[in-house]
């Protein structure tokens, strides 16, 4: 992603990805609505989901998407795709510096806000935002169906 002067702007690169993630996630049948949050700031995308379509029994669910494209054009992105639902269960796929697993990529879940997260190392075929999103939507359905 290039700014007008030809240089790399991490804010622009990240925001461009967030706009595209908001656009594409609305194509998923479980997604009712997606918006940039907080209103006007747009530092993350929040999608309202119908959990039943994803195999959960909860009434309401949201998926929050954060994306930071990296300080330089060739740096790895930092991101989090985190699911919350009205049952209190929450889980997410994160890629960022963390003390819980070796490396950046992990999955975390907990049954309720009072529990500690359980972490596991995972891997992705791609770090490209849009294919990654669809991979995670697929994994989310698997997790919720098994949960």
């Amino acid at each position, binding site marked *: *992603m*290039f*700014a*007008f002067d030809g240089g*790399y*702007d*991490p*804010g*622009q*690169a*990240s*925001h*461009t*990805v*967030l*706009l*595209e993630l908001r*656009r*594409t996630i609305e*194509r*998923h*049948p479980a997604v009712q609505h997606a918006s*940039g949050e907080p209103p*006007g*700031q*747009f*530092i993350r995308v929040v999608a309202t989901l119908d959990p039943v379509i994803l195999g959960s029994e909860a009434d309401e669910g949201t998926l929050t998407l954060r994306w*930071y*494209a*990296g*300080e330089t*054009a*060739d740096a790895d992105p*930092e991101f989090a795709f985190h699911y919350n639902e009205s049952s209190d269960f929450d889980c997410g796929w994160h890629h*960022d*510096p*963390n*003390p819980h697993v070796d490396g950046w990529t992990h999955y975390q879940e907990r049954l309720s806000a009072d529990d500690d997260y359980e972490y596991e190392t*995972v*891997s*992705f*075929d*791609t770090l*490209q*935002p*849009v*294919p*990654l999103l*669809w*991979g*995670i*939507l*697929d*994994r989310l359905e698997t997790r919720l169906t098994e949960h």
Partner: protein
Amino acid sequence: MTDKSGAELWKEHQSAFDRVRAVAVTVSEPKPADWIAEQAHVAGNTARDHLRRLVEMNVLRTTTGGTATRYEPDPLYTRMQALRDLLDNRTRDDLLELRGNLQEQVEEWQTEYDADSPSELRERAAHADTAEATREMRRTANDWDIIAYRLQLVEDAIEHYSDYAGSTPAPA
């Protein structure tokens, strides 16, 4: 775990053209057609056809040098998409209010962390007392980069409001 069924899900809900576009407009560096084809789960020739159309539409541009043609988002298109999102359902007054809100957020971070910019905050984060504080400051620096870009967009939108919105602003 592979994402093969994730790819199937994506193919079910977005066309080949949309997938090629979605991959190509979000690359950080120019990429060749074969790489984009692989990411978008389309055949090489299909990707090349769609990429050619996207270049004609000024969504993408090609870079010269090297052996294969490489594609990257046209910066004007990227800018236009972001401005379009910003201008949707917002009056000039809304934009002025948003500018104030974004500036306030930046000033809050400047005071809280005694840092003038996201990169200065990252430097401070490296020397924070705890690992948790380091992570939190890095996350804030990431948000700050995005807010700084939004602020730049909002200023552009305010300055050119009547051109972009196609109407005369209401008198102040």
